[in-house]
Protein backbone atom coordinates (compact mmCIF):
# COMPACT_ATOMS: atom_id res chain seq x y z
CA UNK A 1 0.00 0.00 0.00
CA UNK A 2 1.26 3.46 -0.87
CA UNK A 3 1.63 5.62 2.22
CA UNK A 4 1.41 9.41 2.43
CA UNK A 5 3.84 11.55 4.40
CA UNK A 6 5.30 15.05 4.65
CA UNK A 7 8.93 16.15 4.72
CA UNK A 8 9.13 18.05 7.98
CA UNK A 9 8.13 21.63 8.59
CA UNK A 10 4.62 23.08 8.50
CA UNK A 11 3.53 26.77 8.45
CA UNK A 12 3.89 28.14 11.97
CA UNK A 13 0.94 30.53 11.76
CA UNK A 14 -2.61 30.23 10.51
CA UNK A 15 -3.91 33.82 10.18
CA UNK A 16 -7.05 32.82 12.04
CA UNK A 17 -7.36 33.59 15.68
CA UNK A 18 -8.54 30.22 16.98
CA UNK A 19 -5.29 29.66 18.88
CA UNK A 20 -2.61 31.97 20.27
CA UNK A 21 -0.24 32.69 17.40
CA UNK A 22 3.37 31.53 17.56
CA UNK A 23 4.39 34.71 15.78
CA UNK A 24 2.77 36.90 18.39
CA UNK A 25 4.03 34.76 21.25
CA UNK A 26 7.64 34.97 20.04
CA UNK A 27 7.25 38.71 19.63
CA UNK A 28 5.87 39.11 23.15
CA UNK A 29 8.56 36.81 24.54
CA UNK A 30 11.27 38.88 22.82
CA UNK A 31 9.86 42.00 24.42
CA UNK A 32 9.81 40.35 27.85
CA UNK A 33 6.03 40.28 28.02
CA UNK A 34 5.69 36.50 27.92
CA UNK A 35 7.54 34.06 30.16
CA UNK A 36 9.27 30.94 28.84
CA UNK A 37 6.61 28.60 30.17
CA UNK A 38 3.83 30.48 28.37
CA UNK A 39 5.77 30.50 25.11
CA UNK A 40 6.27 26.77 25.51
CA UNK A 41 2.54 26.36 26.02
CA UNK A 42 1.76 28.21 22.78
CA UNK A 43 4.18 25.95 20.91
CA UNK A 44 2.60 22.87 22.42
CA UNK A 45 -0.94 23.95 21.59
CA UNK A 46 0.08 24.64 18.03
CA UNK A 47 1.99 21.37 17.78
CA UNK A 48 -1.19 19.55 18.76
CA UNK A 49 -3.08 21.55 16.14
CA UNK A 50 -0.57 20.64 13.43
CA UNK A 51 -0.70 16.96 14.39
CA UNK A 52 -4.52 16.95 14.31
CA UNK A 53 -4.54 18.74 10.95
CA UNK A 54 -2.18 16.26 9.30
CA UNK A 55 -4.16 13.34 10.70
CA UNK A 56 -7.49 14.80 9.65
CA UNK A 57 -6.17 15.38 6.13
CA UNK A 58 -5.18 11.73 5.95
CA UNK A 59 -1.39 11.85 6.15
CA UNK A 60 -0.22 8.39 7.27
CA UNK A 61 3.22 9.32 8.58
CA UNK A 62 3.28 12.76 10.15
CA UNK A 63 5.81 15.06 11.80
CA UNK A 64 5.52 17.50 14.68
CA UNK A 65 5.69 20.33 12.10
CA UNK A 66 9.05 21.55 13.48
CA UNK A 67 7.31 24.62 14.86
CA UNK A 68 10.24 25.38 17.14
CA UNK A 69 12.70 25.16 14.28
CA UNK A 70 13.74 28.40 12.62
CA UNK A 71 15.46 26.28 10.02
CA UNK A 72 16.90 22.82 9.67
CA UNK A 73 20.22 23.38 11.49
CA UNK A 74 19.96 26.19 14.06
CA UNK A 75 17.87 24.28 16.63
CA UNK A 76 20.60 21.66 16.86
CA UNK A 77 23.61 23.93 16.36
CA UNK A 78 22.50 26.24 19.15
CA UNK A 79 22.59 23.31 21.60
CA UNK A 80 25.81 21.71 20.44
CA UNK A 81 28.94 22.98 22.18
CA UNK A 82 31.43 24.49 19.73
CA UNK A 83 28.92 26.31 17.54
CA UNK A 84 28.05 29.95 17.56
CA UNK A 85 25.20 31.32 15.47
CA UNK A 86 26.08 33.97 12.92
CA UNK A 87 24.18 36.31 10.59
CA UNK A 88 21.56 35.59 7.96
CA UNK A 89 22.42 33.60 4.88
CA UNK A 90 20.25 32.45 2.01
CA UNK A 91 18.74 28.98 2.40
CA UNK A 92 19.83 27.25 -0.81
CA UNK A 93 18.05 28.74 -3.84
CA UNK A 94 15.04 30.09 -1.93
CA UNK A 95 14.16 33.65 -0.99
CA UNK A 96 14.36 32.45 2.61
CA UNK A 97 17.17 33.01 5.07
CA UNK A 98 18.68 31.17 8.04
CA UNK A 99 21.22 32.07 10.67
CA UNK A 100 24.45 30.37 9.76
CA UNK A 101 26.09 28.23 12.45
CA UNK A 102 29.84 28.74 12.75
CA UNK A 103 32.10 26.03 14.11
CA UNK A 104 34.41 27.81 16.55
CA UNK A 105 35.59 24.91 18.70
CA UNK A 106 35.46 21.16 19.19
CA UNK A 107 31.88 20.06 18.66
CA UNK A 108 30.32 18.28 21.60
CA UNK A 109 26.84 16.82 22.03
CA UNK A 110 25.95 17.24 25.67
CA UNK A 111 22.44 15.83 25.93
CA UNK A 112 19.44 15.05 23.71
CA UNK A 113 18.17 18.17 21.92
CA UNK A 114 14.98 17.25 20.08
CA UNK A 115 13.84 14.34 22.22
CA UNK A 116 11.63 16.14 24.70
CA UNK A 117 9.56 17.71 21.93
CA UNK A 118 9.43 14.42 20.08
CA UNK A 119 8.06 12.73 23.20
CA UNK A 120 5.42 15.39 23.61
CA UNK A 121 4.33 15.15 19.97
CA UNK A 122 4.30 11.36 20.09
CA UNK A 123 2.03 11.41 23.13
CA UNK A 124 -0.49 13.43 21.08
CA UNK A 125 -0.22 11.58 17.76
CA UNK A 126 -2.44 8.72 16.69
CA UNK A 127 -0.68 8.28 13.33
CA UNK A 128 2.99 7.30 13.01
CA UNK A 129 5.23 10.22 13.98
CA UNK A 130 8.60 10.26 12.26
CA UNK A 131 11.69 11.94 13.64
CA UNK A 132 13.55 14.31 11.32
CA UNK A 133 17.16 15.47 11.59
CA UNK A 134 19.49 17.23 9.18
CA UNK A 135 21.92 14.87 7.48
CA UNK A 136 25.57 15.35 8.45
CA UNK A 137 26.59 16.52 4.99
CA UNK A 138 23.89 19.18 4.80
CA UNK A 139 24.56 20.24 8.38
CA UNK A 140 28.21 20.81 7.43
CA UNK A 141 27.33 22.50 4.13
CA UNK A 142 25.06 25.01 5.87
CA UNK A 143 27.72 25.80 8.49
CA UNK A 144 30.90 27.80 8.33
CA UNK A 145 33.94 25.99 9.66
CA UNK A 146 36.60 28.06 11.39
CA UNK A 147 37.88 25.22 13.55
CA UNK A 148 38.40 21.85 11.85
CA UNK A 149 39.45 23.27 8.48
CA UNK A 150 38.64 19.89 6.99
CA UNK A 151 35.29 19.08 5.47
CA UNK A 152 35.49 15.33 6.02
CA UNK A 153 36.37 15.75 9.69
CA UNK A 154 33.44 18.12 10.14
CA UNK A 155 30.97 15.85 8.36
CA UNK A 156 32.07 12.80 10.36
CA UNK A 157 32.05 14.71 13.64
CA UNK A 158 28.51 15.90 12.95
CA UNK A 159 27.59 12.34 11.93
CA UNK A 160 28.73 11.08 15.32
CA UNK A 161 26.64 13.74 17.07
CA UNK A 162 23.58 13.04 14.93
CA UNK A 163 23.96 9.34 15.66
CA UNK A 164 23.75 10.05 19.39
CA UNK A 165 20.69 12.23 18.85
CA UNK A 166 19.08 9.60 16.62
CA UNK A 167 19.66 6.89 19.22
CA UNK A 168 18.07 9.09 21.87
CA UNK A 169 15.06 9.62 19.58
CA UNK A 170 14.85 5.88 19.06
CA UNK A 171 14.92 5.33 22.80
CA UNK A 172 12.03 7.81 23.05
CA UNK A 173 9.99 5.68 20.66
CA UNK A 174 10.87 6.87 17.17
CA UNK A 175 10.38 4.12 14.61
CA UNK A 176 11.26 6.13 11.50
CA UNK A 177 14.34 8.34 11.35
CA UNK A 178 14.73 10.70 8.44
CA UNK A 179 17.90 12.61 7.63
CA UNK A 180 17.43 15.60 5.31
CA UNK A 181 20.19 16.04 2.75
CA UNK A 182 19.17 18.85 0.37
CA UNK A 183 22.80 19.99 0.06
CA UNK A 184 23.55 16.81 -1.88
CA UNK A 185 21.70 17.96 -4.98
CA UNK A 186 24.00 20.98 -5.21
CA UNK A 187 27.21 19.04 -4.52
CA UNK A 188 26.90 15.74 -6.32
CA UNK A 189 30.67 15.47 -6.52
CA UNK A 190 30.69 14.93 -2.77
CA UNK A 191 28.20 12.06 -2.69
CA UNK A 192 30.70 9.58 -1.28
CA UNK A 193 31.54 11.84 1.64
CA UNK A 194 27.84 12.36 2.29
CA UNK A 195 27.29 8.60 2.29
CA UNK A 196 30.21 8.02 4.63
CA UNK A 197 28.64 10.55 7.02
CA UNK A 198 25.16 9.05 6.70
CA UNK A 199 26.41 5.52 7.38
CA UNK A 200 27.97 6.78 10.58
CA UNK A 201 24.88 8.79 11.56
CA UNK A 202 22.66 5.73 11.00
CA UNK A 203 24.98 3.17 12.61
CA UNK A 204 23.28 0.87 15.11
CA UNK A 205 19.77 2.25 14.51
CA UNK A 206 17.00 -0.32 14.57
CA UNK A 207 14.31 2.00 13.15
CA UNK A 208 13.48 2.50 9.50
CA UNK A 209 16.07 5.02 8.44
CA UNK A 210 16.75 6.96 5.31
CA UNK A 211 17.21 10.30 3.62
CA UNK A 212 15.12 12.94 1.92
CA UNK A 213 16.69 15.14 -0.72
CA UNK A 214 15.04 18.20 -2.22
CA UNK A 215 15.48 21.31 -4.40
CA UNK A 216 17.11 19.19 -7.10
CA UNK A 217 17.93 15.65 -8.18
CA UNK A 218 20.36 12.79 -7.61
CA UNK A 219 20.85 11.98 -11.30
CA UNK A 220 24.30 10.49 -11.67
CA UNK A 221 24.79 9.59 -8.00
CA UNK A 222 21.59 7.74 -7.10
CA UNK A 223 23.07 4.27 -7.45
CA UNK A 224 25.66 4.91 -4.74
CA UNK A 225 22.81 5.17 -2.23
CA UNK A 226 21.46 1.73 -3.15
CA UNK A 227 24.58 0.11 -1.68
CA UNK A 228 24.08 1.60 1.79
CA UNK A 229 22.28 0.42 4.93
CA UNK A 230 19.51 2.98 4.62
CA UNK A 231 15.95 1.74 4.18
CA UNK A 232 14.49 4.59 2.16
CA UNK A 233 15.68 7.25 -0.28
CA UNK A 234 13.61 10.36 -0.85
CA UNK A 235 13.61 12.24 -4.16
CA UNK A 236 12.15 15.56 -5.29
CA UNK A 237 10.26 15.02 -8.57
CA UNK A 238 9.13 18.64 -8.83
CA UNK A 239 12.19 20.89 -8.74
CA UNK A 240 13.93 19.40 -11.75
CA UNK A 241 13.60 16.68 -14.37
CA UNK A 242 16.63 14.72 -13.20
CA UNK A 243 14.92 12.32 -10.83
CA UNK A 244 12.21 11.47 -13.36
CA UNK A 245 14.89 10.69 -15.91
CA UNK A 246 16.83 8.46 -13.58
CA UNK A 247 13.75 6.51 -12.44
CA UNK A 248 12.61 6.03 -16.03
CA UNK A 249 15.75 4.02 -16.66
CA UNK A 250 15.13 1.71 -13.68
CA UNK A 251 12.80 -1.25 -13.65
CA UNK A 252 13.06 -1.84 -9.95
CA UNK A 253 15.04 -0.43 -7.04
CA UNK A 254 15.85 -2.37 -3.89
CA UNK A 255 14.93 0.37 -1.40
CA UNK A 256 11.77 2.09 -0.31
CA UNK A 257 11.22 5.31 -2.23
CA UNK A 258 10.08 8.64 -0.86
CA UNK A 259 8.52 10.53 -3.74
CA UNK A 260 8.11 14.29 -3.50
CA UNK A 261 5.34 14.78 -6.07
CA UNK A 262 3.44 17.83 -4.86
CA UNK A 263 5.12 21.22 -5.22
CA UNK A 264 5.56 22.74 -1.77
CA UNK A 265 7.21 25.84 -3.21
CA UNK A 266 4.30 26.93 -5.36
CA UNK A 267 0.62 27.48 -4.57
CA UNK A 268 -0.63 26.02 -7.86
CA UNK A 269 -2.69 22.90 -7.22
CA UNK A 270 -1.52 19.70 -8.95
CA UNK A 271 -3.54 18.17 -11.76
CA UNK A 272 -4.92 14.95 -10.23
CA UNK A 273 -4.75 12.91 -13.42
CA UNK A 274 -1.08 13.74 -14.06
CA UNK A 275 -0.26 13.12 -10.41
CA UNK A 276 -2.04 9.77 -10.43
CA UNK A 277 -0.33 8.57 -13.61
CA UNK A 278 3.04 9.46 -12.21
CA UNK A 279 2.46 7.74 -8.87
CA UNK A 280 1.31 4.62 -10.66
CA UNK A 281 4.46 4.64 -12.72
CA UNK A 282 6.53 4.72 -9.53
CA UNK A 283 4.64 2.19 -7.49
CA UNK A 284 5.84 -0.72 -9.62
CA UNK A 285 9.46 0.17 -9.07
CA UNK A 286 9.86 -0.03 -5.32
CA UNK A 287 8.92 -2.35 -2.46
CA UNK A 288 7.38 0.60 -0.59
CA UNK A 289 6.35 3.99 -1.94
CA UNK A 290 5.87 7.00 0.31
CA UNK A 291 4.24 9.93 -1.49
CA UNK A 292 4.75 13.44 -0.12
CA UNK A 293 5.26 17.08 -1.02
CA UNK A 294 8.72 17.69 -2.50
CA UNK A 295 10.03 19.63 0.50
CA UNK A 296 8.91 21.19 3.79
CA UNK A 297 5.55 22.96 3.74
CA UNK A 298 6.68 26.23 5.27
CA UNK A 299 7.31 27.86 1.90
CA UNK A 300 3.54 27.89 1.40
CA UNK A 301 1.01 30.14 3.08
CA UNK A 302 -1.20 28.27 5.53
CA UNK A 303 -4.27 28.48 3.28
CA UNK A 304 -2.54 26.30 0.66
CA UNK A 305 -1.74 23.40 2.98
CA UNK A 306 -5.14 21.70 3.16
CA UNK A 307 -5.81 21.85 -0.60
CA UNK A 308 -2.32 20.55 -1.40
CA UNK A 309 -2.33 17.70 1.11
CA UNK A 310 -5.93 16.75 0.33
CA UNK A 311 -5.09 16.47 -3.34
CA UNK A 312 -2.13 14.25 -2.51
CA UNK A 313 -4.15 12.01 -0.18
CA UNK A 314 -7.09 11.76 -2.57
CA UNK A 315 -4.89 10.67 -5.47
CA UNK A 316 -2.96 8.14 -3.37
CA UNK A 317 -6.26 6.66 -2.14
CA UNK A 318 -7.39 6.22 -5.74
CA UNK A 319 -4.11 4.49 -6.57
CA UNK A 320 -4.42 2.21 -3.55
CA UNK A 321 -8.03 1.34 -4.36
CA UNK A 322 -7.06 0.47 -7.89
CA UNK A 323 -4.04 -1.62 -6.92
CA UNK A 324 -5.81 -3.39 -4.07
CA UNK A 325 -4.01 -3.83 -0.76
CA UNK A 326 -0.53 -5.07 -1.53
Amino acid at each position, binding site marked *: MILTTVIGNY*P*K*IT*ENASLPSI*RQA*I*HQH*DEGRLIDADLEKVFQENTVRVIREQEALGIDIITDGQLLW*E*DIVTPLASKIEGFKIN*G*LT*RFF*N*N*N*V*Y*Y*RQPVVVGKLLWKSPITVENFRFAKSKATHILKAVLPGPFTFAALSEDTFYHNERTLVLTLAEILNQEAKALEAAGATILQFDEPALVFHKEKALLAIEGLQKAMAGLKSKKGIRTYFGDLEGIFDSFLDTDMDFIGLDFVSSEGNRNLLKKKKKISKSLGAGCVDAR*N*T*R*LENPKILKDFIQELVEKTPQLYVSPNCGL*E*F*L*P*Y*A*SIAPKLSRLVEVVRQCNARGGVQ
Partner: protein
Amino acid sequence: MSALLTTSVGSFPKPDYLQKARNDFYRGKLDKGKLHELEQQATREVIQKQEEIGLDILVDGEMYRGDMATYFAEQLEGFKISGLVRSYGNRYYRKPVAVGRIRRKTPITVSWYTFAQSLTQKPIKGMLTGPYTIMDWSFDEYYPSRRAFALDLAEVIHEEAADLEKAGAKYIQIDEPAVSTRPEEIDLAIEAMKIVTKGLKAKTITHICYGDFEKIYPQMLSLAVDQIDLELANRDFALLDLFKKQPFTKEIGLGVLDVHRHETDSKEKVKKGIKKALEIFPPERIYVDPDCGLKTRTPEEAFAKLKVMVEARNEIRLELQGG
Protein backbone atom coordinates in the same frame (compact mmCIF):
# COMPACT_ATOMS: atom_id res chain seq x y z
CA MET B 1 34.86 65.78 -12.53
CA SER B 2 32.63 62.91 -13.59
CA ALA B 3 34.80 60.12 -12.26
CA LEU B 4 34.01 57.99 -9.21
CA LEU B 5 30.43 59.23 -9.01
CA THR B 6 28.64 58.29 -5.81
CA THR B 7 25.14 56.91 -5.55
CA SER B 8 23.11 54.41 -3.53
CA VAL B 9 21.39 51.14 -4.34
CA GLY B 10 17.85 52.39 -3.84
CA SER B 11 16.13 51.91 -0.51
CA PHE B 12 16.59 54.10 2.56
CA PRO B 13 15.32 53.40 6.08
CA LYS B 14 11.85 54.71 6.75
CA PRO B 15 11.62 57.25 9.56
CA ASP B 16 9.70 56.12 12.66
CA TYR B 17 6.68 58.32 11.92
CA LEU B 18 6.30 56.71 8.50
CA GLN B 19 6.71 53.19 9.86
CA LYS B 20 3.97 53.94 12.36
CA ALA B 21 1.77 55.49 9.69
CA ARG B 22 2.15 52.40 7.50
CA ASN B 23 1.10 50.16 10.40
CA ASP B 24 -1.87 52.42 11.12
CA PHE B 25 -2.83 52.37 7.45
CA TYR B 26 -2.85 48.54 7.35
CA ARG B 27 -4.98 48.49 10.49
CA GLY B 28 -7.44 50.90 8.89
CA LYS B 29 -6.60 53.68 11.32
CA LEU B 30 -5.14 56.05 8.72
CA ASP B 31 -6.44 56.98 5.27
CA LYS B 32 -4.48 56.68 2.06
CA GLY B 33 -4.24 60.42 1.51
CA LYS B 34 -2.62 61.01 4.88
CA LEU B 35 -0.19 58.13 4.35
CA HIS B 36 0.73 59.58 0.96
CA GLU B 37 1.45 62.98 2.52
CA LEU B 38 3.81 61.36 5.02
CA GLU B 39 5.51 59.36 2.27
CA GLN B 40 6.11 62.64 0.42
CA GLN B 41 7.45 64.28 3.56
CA ALA B 42 9.87 61.38 4.10
CA THR B 43 10.92 61.56 0.43
CA ARG B 44 11.68 65.27 0.78
CA GLU B 45 13.78 64.56 3.85
CA VAL B 46 15.73 61.75 2.25
CA ILE B 47 16.47 63.81 -0.87
CA GLN B 48 17.69 66.67 1.27
CA LYS B 49 19.86 64.32 3.29
CA GLN B 50 21.46 62.87 0.16
CA GLU B 51 22.24 66.40 -1.05
CA GLU B 52 23.77 67.32 2.31
CA ILE B 53 25.97 64.24 2.24
CA GLY B 54 27.05 65.16 -1.28
CA LEU B 55 25.95 62.13 -3.29
CA ASP B 56 26.01 62.64 -7.07
CA ILE B 57 23.15 60.46 -8.27
CA LEU B 58 20.16 60.41 -5.93
CA VAL B 59 17.25 58.02 -5.40
CA ASP B 60 13.75 58.66 -4.13
CA GLY B 61 14.48 56.35 -1.18
CA GLU B 62 11.45 54.07 -1.77
CA MET B 63 9.51 55.46 1.19
CA TYR B 64 6.31 54.16 -0.42
CA ARG B 65 7.46 50.57 -0.97
CA GLY B 66 7.40 47.57 1.33
CA ASP B 67 8.90 44.55 -0.35
CA MET B 68 10.67 45.12 -3.68
CA ALA B 69 8.76 42.42 -5.57
CA THR B 70 5.38 42.66 -3.89
CA TYR B 71 5.24 46.44 -4.40
CA PHE B 72 5.25 46.00 -8.19
CA ALA B 73 2.95 42.99 -8.12
CA GLU B 74 0.35 44.90 -6.14
CA GLN B 75 -0.01 47.34 -9.00
CA LEU B 76 0.03 44.92 -11.90
CA GLU B 77 -2.93 43.13 -13.41
CA GLY B 78 -2.69 39.33 -13.12
CA PHE B 79 -1.27 39.20 -9.62
CA LYS B 80 -2.91 38.56 -6.32
CA ILE B 81 -1.09 38.60 -2.99
CA SER B 82 -0.65 35.44 -0.90
CA GLY B 83 -1.12 34.80 2.79
CA LEU B 84 1.87 35.19 5.06
CA VAL B 85 5.01 33.14 4.55
CA ARG B 86 8.08 33.26 6.75
CA SER B 87 11.32 34.65 5.35
CA TYR B 88 13.50 34.12 8.43
CA GLY B 89 13.32 34.16 12.22
CA ASN B 90 9.96 35.61 13.18
CA ARG B 91 9.65 37.68 9.97
CA TYR B 92 6.79 37.05 7.58
CA TYR B 93 5.78 38.61 4.29
CA ARG B 94 3.17 38.21 1.59
CA LYS B 95 4.25 36.88 -1.77
CA PRO B 96 2.81 37.78 -5.16
CA VAL B 97 0.85 35.02 -6.91
CA ALA B 98 0.44 35.12 -10.70
CA VAL B 99 -3.16 34.13 -11.43
CA GLY B 100 -3.55 35.59 -14.92
CA ARG B 101 -1.64 37.26 -17.72
CA ILE B 102 0.55 39.99 -16.21
CA ARG B 103 -0.23 43.46 -17.61
CA ARG B 104 0.55 47.00 -16.56
CA LYS B 105 -2.53 49.15 -16.18
CA THR B 106 -0.81 52.48 -15.48
CA PRO B 107 2.72 53.66 -14.75
CA ILE B 108 3.86 52.47 -11.32
CA THR B 109 6.85 54.52 -10.18
CA VAL B 110 6.80 57.46 -12.60
CA SER B 111 4.89 59.92 -10.39
CA TRP B 112 7.35 59.25 -7.54
CA TYR B 113 10.26 59.76 -9.91
CA THR B 114 8.80 63.07 -11.09
CA PHE B 115 8.07 64.22 -7.56
CA ALA B 116 11.60 63.38 -6.37
CA GLN B 117 13.21 65.00 -9.41
CA SER B 118 11.23 68.19 -8.78
CA LEU B 119 13.01 68.51 -5.43
CA THR B 120 16.59 68.50 -6.68
CA GLN B 121 18.92 69.60 -9.48
CA LYS B 122 20.89 66.37 -9.18
CA PRO B 123 19.79 63.39 -11.27
CA ILE B 124 17.31 60.97 -9.70
CA LYS B 125 17.78 57.36 -10.64
CA GLY B 126 14.67 55.41 -11.69
CA MET B 127 14.43 52.25 -9.60
CA LEU B 128 12.78 49.05 -10.83
CA THR B 129 12.79 45.39 -9.84
CA GLY B 130 13.80 43.07 -12.65
CA PRO B 131 11.53 40.48 -14.25
CA TYR B 132 13.63 37.48 -13.24
CA THR B 133 13.55 38.49 -9.58
CA ILE B 134 9.82 39.24 -9.50
CA MET B 135 9.21 35.85 -11.12
CA ASP B 136 11.53 34.00 -8.75
CA TRP B 137 10.02 35.65 -5.68
CA SER B 138 6.40 34.96 -6.69
CA PHE B 139 4.13 31.95 -6.72
CA ASP B 140 2.82 31.09 -10.16
CA GLU B 141 -0.58 29.55 -10.77
CA TYR B 142 -0.95 30.72 -14.35
CA TYR B 143 2.09 30.43 -16.60
CA PRO B 144 3.21 27.19 -18.24
CA SER B 145 6.85 27.85 -17.37
CA ARG B 146 9.17 30.12 -15.43
CA ARG B 147 10.39 31.46 -18.75
CA ALA B 148 6.94 32.47 -19.99
CA PHE B 149 6.29 34.19 -16.66
CA ALA B 150 9.60 36.07 -16.67
CA LEU B 151 9.26 37.20 -20.28
CA ASP B 152 5.80 38.68 -19.72
CA LEU B 153 7.15 40.53 -16.70
CA ALA B 154 10.02 41.77 -18.86
CA GLU B 155 7.57 43.47 -21.23
CA VAL B 156 5.84 45.14 -18.32
CA ILE B 157 9.06 46.38 -16.72
CA HIS B 158 10.19 47.61 -20.14
CA GLU B 159 7.05 49.74 -20.43
CA GLU B 160 7.77 51.19 -17.01
CA ALA B 161 11.42 51.88 -17.86
CA ALA B 162 10.42 53.58 -21.13
CA ASP B 163 7.98 55.80 -19.22
CA LEU B 164 10.65 56.73 -16.68
CA GLU B 165 12.93 57.70 -19.56
CA LYS B 166 10.15 59.79 -21.11
CA ALA B 167 9.72 61.52 -17.76
CA GLY B 168 13.38 62.48 -17.90
CA ALA B 169 15.31 59.73 -16.08
CA LYS B 170 18.95 59.62 -17.17
CA TYR B 171 19.73 56.60 -15.01
CA ILE B 172 17.48 53.56 -14.71
CA GLN B 173 18.36 50.71 -12.39
CA ILE B 174 16.70 47.32 -12.76
CA ASP B 175 17.51 45.23 -9.71
CA GLU B 176 18.00 41.49 -10.15
CA PRO B 177 19.16 40.20 -6.76
CA ALA B 178 17.76 36.73 -7.49
CA VAL B 179 19.96 36.20 -10.54
CA SER B 180 22.85 34.80 -8.54
CA THR B 181 20.82 32.13 -6.76
CA ARG B 182 20.08 29.84 -9.70
CA PRO B 183 23.14 29.91 -11.94
CA GLU B 184 21.43 27.44 -14.26
CA GLU B 185 18.89 30.11 -15.18
CA ILE B 186 21.28 32.95 -16.00
CA ASP B 187 20.34 32.69 -19.69
CA LEU B 188 16.71 33.37 -18.84
CA ALA B 189 17.67 36.43 -16.81
CA ILE B 190 19.75 37.65 -19.76
CA GLU B 191 16.91 37.06 -22.23
CA ALA B 192 14.49 38.97 -19.99
CA MET B 193 16.84 41.91 -19.41
CA LYS B 194 17.29 42.31 -23.15
CA ILE B 195 13.56 42.96 -23.39
CA VAL B 196 13.57 45.39 -20.45
CA THR B 197 16.28 47.68 -21.77
CA LYS B 198 15.63 47.50 -25.53
CA GLY B 199 15.76 50.93 -27.13
CA LEU B 200 16.51 52.82 -23.90
CA LYS B 201 18.94 55.72 -24.14
CA ALA B 202 19.24 56.26 -20.38
CA LYS B 203 22.18 54.69 -18.60
CA THR B 204 21.00 51.27 -17.41
CA ILE B 205 22.22 49.53 -14.31
CA THR B 206 21.44 46.25 -12.64
CA HIS B 207 22.13 45.36 -9.03
CA ILE B 208 22.85 41.73 -8.15
CA CYS B 209 23.53 40.45 -4.66
CA TYR B 210 23.58 37.47 -2.26
CA GLY B 211 25.71 35.76 -4.59
CA ASP B 212 27.94 33.10 -5.73
CA PHE B 213 29.03 35.44 -8.50
CA GLU B 214 31.77 33.00 -9.42
CA LYS B 215 29.09 30.69 -10.81
CA ILE B 216 27.56 33.30 -13.12
CA TYR B 217 30.75 35.04 -14.18
CA PRO B 218 31.54 35.98 -16.90
CA GLN B 219 28.06 35.06 -18.28
CA MET B 220 26.48 37.85 -16.25
CA LEU B 221 28.34 40.35 -18.43
CA SER B 222 25.80 39.50 -21.14
CA LEU B 223 23.03 41.23 -19.18
CA ALA B 224 21.90 44.08 -21.44
CA VAL B 225 22.84 46.98 -19.16
CA ASP B 226 25.63 49.55 -19.09
CA GLN B 227 26.56 48.95 -15.48
CA ILE B 228 26.47 46.05 -13.02
CA ASP B 229 26.32 46.96 -9.36
CA LEU B 230 27.79 44.43 -6.94
CA GLU B 231 28.30 43.94 -3.22
CA LEU B 232 32.03 43.94 -2.59
CA ALA B 233 32.61 45.29 0.91
CA ASN B 234 31.05 42.36 2.73
CA ARG B 235 33.64 40.06 1.19
CA ASP B 236 36.52 42.42 1.55
CA PHE B 237 36.66 43.13 -2.21
CA ALA B 238 37.84 39.60 -3.00
CA LEU B 239 35.59 39.57 -6.05
CA LEU B 240 37.83 42.10 -7.78
CA ASP B 241 40.51 39.42 -8.09
CA LEU B 242 38.12 37.46 -10.30
CA PHE B 243 37.88 40.48 -12.62
CA LYS B 244 41.65 40.60 -12.92
CA LYS B 245 41.57 37.14 -14.45
CA GLN B 246 38.50 37.72 -16.65
CA PRO B 247 37.97 41.34 -17.71
CA PHE B 248 34.80 43.02 -16.46
CA THR B 249 33.54 44.62 -19.64
CA LYS B 250 30.94 46.99 -18.16
CA GLU B 251 30.94 49.89 -15.78
CA ILE B 252 30.96 48.72 -12.19
CA GLY B 253 28.75 49.81 -9.33
CA LEU B 254 31.25 49.30 -6.55
CA GLY B 255 29.63 48.32 -3.26
CA VAL B 256 31.94 49.71 -0.58
CA LEU B 257 29.71 49.73 2.52
CA ASP B 258 28.65 46.58 4.37
CA VAL B 259 24.95 47.31 4.81
CA HIS B 260 24.39 44.37 7.17
CA ARG B 261 26.54 45.86 9.92
CA HIS B 262 25.40 48.49 12.37
CA GLU B 263 28.88 49.99 12.78
CA THR B 264 30.01 52.73 10.43
CA ASP B 265 32.53 51.38 7.96
CA SER B 266 36.04 52.76 8.30
CA LYS B 267 37.13 55.33 5.76
CA GLU B 268 40.36 53.41 5.28
CA LYS B 269 38.48 50.27 4.28
CA VAL B 270 36.34 52.18 1.81
CA LYS B 271 39.42 53.82 0.31
CA LYS B 272 41.18 50.49 0.10
CA GLY B 273 38.26 49.10 -1.88
CA ILE B 274 38.14 52.02 -4.29
CA LYS B 275 41.90 51.84 -4.81
CA LYS B 276 41.72 48.15 -5.50
CA ALA B 277 39.04 48.82 -8.11
CA LEU B 278 41.18 51.56 -9.67
CA GLU B 279 43.81 48.92 -10.43
CA ILE B 280 41.28 47.37 -12.83
CA PHE B 281 38.90 50.14 -13.94
CA PRO B 282 39.47 53.70 -15.10
CA PRO B 283 37.85 56.10 -12.58
CA GLU B 284 35.05 57.16 -14.95
CA ARG B 285 33.83 53.55 -15.13
CA ILE B 286 33.51 53.20 -11.35
CA TYR B 287 30.35 54.25 -9.49
CA VAL B 288 30.80 54.15 -5.73
CA ASP B 289 27.84 53.00 -3.62
CA PRO B 290 26.83 50.77 -0.67
CA ASP B 291 26.66 46.97 -1.05
CA CYS B 292 22.88 46.92 -1.09
CA GLY B 293 19.77 48.90 -0.12
CA LEU B 294 20.00 50.65 3.24
CA LYS B 295 16.47 50.04 4.46
CA THR B 296 17.51 47.57 7.16
CA ARG B 297 19.71 50.15 8.92
CA THR B 298 18.50 53.00 11.12
CA PRO B 299 18.47 56.41 9.43
CA GLU B 300 21.42 57.50 11.59
CA GLU B 301 23.47 54.43 10.66
CA ALA B 302 22.65 54.81 6.97
CA PHE B 303 23.60 58.49 6.78
CA ALA B 304 26.80 58.00 8.81
CA LYS B 305 27.88 55.24 6.44
CA LEU B 306 27.17 57.31 3.32
CA LYS B 307 29.07 60.25 4.76
CA VAL B 308 32.19 58.12 5.20
CA MET B 309 31.75 56.84 1.65
CA VAL B 310 31.64 60.34 0.15
CA GLU B 311 34.61 61.48 2.26
CA ALA B 312 36.65 58.49 1.15
CA ARG B 313 35.78 59.17 -2.48
CA ASN B 314 36.71 62.86 -2.10
CA GLU B 315 40.11 62.03 -0.65
CA ILE B 316 40.86 59.59 -3.43
CA ARG B 317 39.84 62.16 -6.04
CA LEU B 318 42.28 64.61 -4.49
CA GLU B 319 45.01 62.01 -4.54
CA LEU B 320 44.27 61.27 -8.20
CA GLN B 321 44.33 64.96 -9.13
CA GLY B 322 47.39 65.68 -6.99
CA GLY B 323 49.16 62.88 -8.86
